[in-house]
């Protein structure tokens, strides 16, 4: 498994339960989309910086986490400047940067286990209607979040290997080995989950269920 973005800590944000944090994030993100006033957005951005720093993580580290998002934001901002106008570009960049920081603050202070638990609760009503299995649905969403950095990591590894063999960076030559490698890793992960006794009961076909559950490795 890959390292989660969550960092242990005792900051105020760490101590708030996951559900209110996620609800707050959804509300903030929604409200910010209806704000166009640059000064208000600048204030939101400043607030987001304070909130992100309050988790105890240094700005340098936060910057490293959000480097990818920053590149996308820069491209978006330049394009908006060119296609629409300066004030719009500033508003768009401030809004998205504030949301990204708030979202990252939640991610940094919420463990995967907490997130899964909240998702299970959200999916609960659908389960009672017989639409889905809450535990499995929550696991799927959490796994997806953990797979994103894994894909980036594999992409970098393949690109380095190709560069070492003197190959140019070609998207198609990257896509095929990347897909194959992450599919293989996802199947290995599924087997590891099965070996640890998930799901607790039910529709697992063909897998031995009497294996004593071992505590998951850290």
């Amino acid at each position, binding site marked *: 498994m890959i390292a989660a973005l969550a960092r242990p800590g005792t900051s105020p944000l760490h101590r708030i339960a996951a559900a209110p944090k996620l609800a707050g994030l959804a509300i903030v993100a929604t409200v910010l989309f209806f704000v166009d006033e640059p000064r208000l957005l600048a204030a939101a951005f400043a607030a987001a910086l304070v909130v992100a720093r309050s988790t105890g993580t240094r700005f340098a580290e936060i910057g490293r986490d959000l480097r990818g998002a920053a590149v996308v934001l820069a491209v978006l901002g330049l394009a908006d400047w060119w296609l629409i106008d300066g004030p719009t570009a500033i508003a768009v960049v401030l809004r998205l940067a504030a949301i990204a920081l708030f*979202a990252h603050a939640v991610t940094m202070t919420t463990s995967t286990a907490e997130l899964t638990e909240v998702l299970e609760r959200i999916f609960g009503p659908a389960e009672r209607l017989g639409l889905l299995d809450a535990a499995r649905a929550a696991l799927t*969403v959490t*796994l*997806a979040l953990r797979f994103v950095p894994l894909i980036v990591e594999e992409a970098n590894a393949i690109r380095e290997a190709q560069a070492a063999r003197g190959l140019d960076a070609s998207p198609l030559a990257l*896509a*095929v080995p990347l*897909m194959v490698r992450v*599919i293989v890793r996802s199947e290995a992960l599924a087997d590891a989950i099965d070996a640890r006794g998930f799901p607790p009961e039910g529709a697992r076909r063909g897998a031995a269920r009497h294996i004593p559950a071992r505590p998951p490795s850290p």
Partner: protein
Amino acid sequence: MTTRDISLVALMAAVIVALGVVPAIPLAGGVPITLQSMGVMLAGLVLGPRRGAAAVLVVIALVALGLPVLAGGRGGLAVFAGPTAGFLLGWVLAAFVTGFLAQVFEAPEKSTPVRTLQLTLAAIVGGIVVLYLCGILWLAFFMKMGLAKAFAVSIAFVPGDVAKAVVAALVTVQVRRAVAIERK
């Protein structure tokens, strides 16, 4: 769904998210050209209709949670009220139809070019025709743009999306040669 199904669905959802990090080209009006629609085609082509659509639903759940997983760092409930919501929700149907057609065309004995062509067709029908229908209807009626204007705004993206369908088909044929995945 077995644990492998869950893992594959989560993986394709992550692929769609990761493709959003590849810099997008935003066009005026706020509808960006992104590689994420190629991820939707891939989900259908690689996993089949039900798991492909499930992968898209996972992405939509992440958006609703407020995570910035769409191209350009967009996310949050506001997206569902915006101009591109029709395309976002249309992804579910697009992945399903793409996967369904890929299943219908399933024929391992055919040559690689034929299979690539068939999968391209599946991706075009699901990922372009069906998707644009959802997106254009949303723009026309919920955004009160009118059918003609909604059509004109969207049609500019078709050439790029056809190219994405071809790439998705090429990648799928080679990936499925290396790993055996049943479409379901």
